[in-house]
């Protein structure tokens, strides 16, 4: 990722320092005291160097990535940023501020070791209607080492970061599950596979063996269901989206394979976190 220019401006302490500089200058001129003049000009020169040092603290920092976990709208999510320090010296006090939909989200990393990466996670409320959102701006700033100036820059190409707020799940249960007779005969354990519902993990086995195993049940009903968009005729769009979101959620939690038919695309039967997010993504982008 390429970085734009670094800007620098005094913060409140810098402004206080500037006021102090004016006082020093006034005192020196009033009393014609060359030593006080010296002190004032030394402070001025030092301030110029402080600007460069503050910018230097930021110069070696690269903004790598930002990841906001998609979640249902009106829920909270987690945002994580990744920064890298390319210099041979550690950098300190890096602030990152992102703004989207007028809401500022701030991250603070106190130290990034030399030639290392650092990340920071922050809870982010998704108080937005469902939909696809993009980041407007990422502001990276610091005031280290002297705390008198704030240097900041903006990360480029951040519009490609999308944040999905899924439709809030709400509605009836899965249609197939309403009439299905399910058998809950325990059929044994199998090793955990990514995508398996955590509800099916047998924690007693884990406490004994320190290995994740899920319970398998024999079921008399079908092991996969089909979810059709057309089943939701008669409802308005938001209700349809919420209902479909609820079905997908229930299907995923039940650890059964589900196929989703959207108006323009059909997602083949599957299950697991990846399939779930793909379905929700298509659902969010609908309409």
């Amino acid at each position: 990722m390429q970085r734009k220019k670094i800007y620098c401006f005094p913060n409140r302490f810098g402004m206080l320092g500037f006021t102090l500089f004016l006082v020093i200058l006034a005192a020196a001129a009033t009393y014609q005291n060359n030593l006080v003049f010296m002190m004032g000009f030394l402070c001025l020169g030092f301030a110029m160097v402080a600007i460069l040092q503050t910018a230097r603290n930021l110069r070696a920092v690269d903004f790598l990535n930002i990841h906001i976990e998609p979640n249902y709208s009106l829920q909270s999510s987690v945002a994580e940023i990744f920064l890298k320090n390319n210099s041979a010296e550690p950098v300190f006090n890096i602030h990152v501020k992102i703004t989207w939909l007028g809401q500022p989200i701030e991250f603070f990393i106190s130290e990034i070791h030399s030639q290392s990466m650092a990340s920071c996670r922050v809870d982010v409320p998704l108080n937005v209607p469902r939909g696809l959102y993009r980041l407007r701006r990422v502001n990276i700033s610091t005031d280290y080492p002297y705390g008198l100036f704030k240097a900041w820059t903006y990360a480029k190409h951040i519009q490609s970061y999308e944040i999905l707020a899924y439709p809030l799940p709400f509605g009836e249960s899965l249609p197939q599950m309403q009439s299905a007779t399910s058998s809950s005969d325990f059929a044994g354990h199998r090793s955990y596979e990514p995508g398996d519902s955590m509800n099916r993990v047998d924690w007693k086995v884990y406490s004994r063996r320190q290995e994740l195993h899920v319970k398998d049940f024999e079921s008399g009903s079908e092991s996969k269901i089909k979810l059709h968009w057309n089943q939701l005729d008669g409802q308005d769009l938001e209700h349809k989206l919420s209902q479909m979101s609820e079905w997908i959620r229930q299907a995923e939690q039940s650890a059964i394979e589900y196929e989703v038919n959207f108006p323009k695309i059909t997602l083949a039967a599957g299950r697991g976190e990846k399939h779930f997010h793909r379905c929700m993504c298509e659902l969010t982008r609908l309409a």
Partner: protein
Amino acid sequence: MNNFLFFLFALASIPLMSECPWWSIALTCSVALHAYLASQSYFKVLSFFWTGTISLVVLLIVYNEFGNIFGPEPASAYLVVLGALKLEEVRNRRDTMILLLLNVLMVMYYLLFNQSLAATAYMFLMLFLIAFGLISAQTPRNAWDIVSKAAPRTAIKDIALSAPLFIIMFVLFPRFSTPWASFMGEEKNPVGFSDRLQPGEMADLLQSEEPAFRVTFKNQNSSSSQASLYWRGAIFDETVNGWNWSSHEMQTNINRRANVSSKSDVEYELTLEPRFDKKLFVMEHTEDVQWLDSTNMNPIILSPNSTYISKWPIGSRQTYKARASSESSQAFTLSQSEQSRLTEIKPPSAEVAELVRRLKFNSSLAKDFADNLLKYFQQENFSYVTKTPTMNSLDDFLFQEKKGFCEHFATASAALFRYANIPARVVVGFRGAEPSFFNDYFLIRDKNAHAWMEYYSDEKWHRLDPTSAVSATWIQAGQISDDQSLTGGLGSGRVRQWFRKFSLLYDQAEFRYSQLLLNYNFSAQMELLRWDGSKKWLRTLLIFLTFGLCTLIVWFFYRWSLHFKSQDVLAEAMSRLRSHLLKKNIPIAESDGPLRMTRLCIEKYPDKEKQISDYFSHWIETRYGRKKLTSETLRRLKNYPV
């Protein structure tokens, strides 16, 4: 961090407290002590109500005592208390930053009182500590171990890097005066001689090594003998009892036409130390006194006594030039009333009258009277001492104690002359001079303060130094004698000698520093930028271009130094390691990795097998493993095992 803040506050406030009233010092120390104990959890910190109340009360007291809150003295008194109160409420970074900036203000106010080489060094030290404090305040606690070693270097480096801009600004910034300068004038008590002369008052001055002024002579023949250097300051010509003297108020500006200078005239420049006094010290028969800085608006007034004073107190180091002739070229006729005034004294005691009669024996000449007086002092074994018992009258000195210092002798002599109906007066000033370390100027210290007298005869004033009769060594050398009562004693002669040399060298450095930098004013600035010729614009342009070029060079150099090393530091380190091993005659090929290098090194140095294995294991973990690359890791990789 808290302990550092207390230490910094102490360094900033203690020098300033020497200029503060006693109540301010007491309050500051109390509050600072309370703050320190509170930080150690012995007490609770003062609430905002109490700190605010104390601040307000102190402000009112300062205003009541000084009449304003902005001058150096009132602001210092208020600032030190404010700083101590701020120590009470240091809880977060904001408070730390404010306290650090407050320290800057305290240092500035101290520099208003003290301009010297030592004050300059103090300024640099404090700025360094404050810069270090700023870095400390920003550094996260868990990273302090790493930063603490680099922070002092960073602070020093950054102060040094600010030098070019500082130099340019200092040289080029116009030295203008501010409209409110007249309201902020200092009204301090003058240091040195008072306006009344009572024998015994100069005792403290005679013990002081503080410099009074420095003199540079322009002609070769003028620096011949510092023993002959009398520096006239004030004249005391009014007395009632012959023991206590005062000055007659006649400070009118007399425009005496300066005589044409001759080869035997002495031209000199005198640099006064700031004493908040109006007296100017000149050699005898001095004419044509002018400030060296032509923009100095403080008028010099010449009195009929041939003494010079300035209209306003001199609060900073000032230099004036003057010309003195070898003897008075003008006859000076005293009017009858003036003669009466200068012989006016209350009738003497019987003993004094008898003494005067003896001294006038067979001669009415004033010179004979003077010689007889000196003989009297010698024959009666008068002695010169700096510590005397209290004497309240002339009779005590002349007939009982028979010891004293220059004040006693001068006043007694002048009184005796007046009793003999010869106009006489007491002169107070300095006597003698000490050559500087490089013999380019003379230093006159407070302990060179001296009093002598003058008597009027043959239409001239004649100097008479009665102290010469009793302390020939001191007078003839014109310098510090070995008399312990004068020097106070410094131990063995060699130690004193070394101390004296060091003292002179320091004074030399201080004086030159003062001339070059501290006295750099509007005139000096114009002189630097002016060209005495037709192409003055060219020189000005050249100077600006030179400064501009220097600035650019420094700027580019700094930008280059900011370029951080983003290449693979480990690859660089590996390359250096290969070069090192090749120098040790270990056949390392370019393609050899750490494992092969380990084997080759162990083959060559089998006794260091463990160190070699540990080193390359560390290397492999750093490069390929999970070990983070830190400055500590890099340092370890530089400690080669062979």
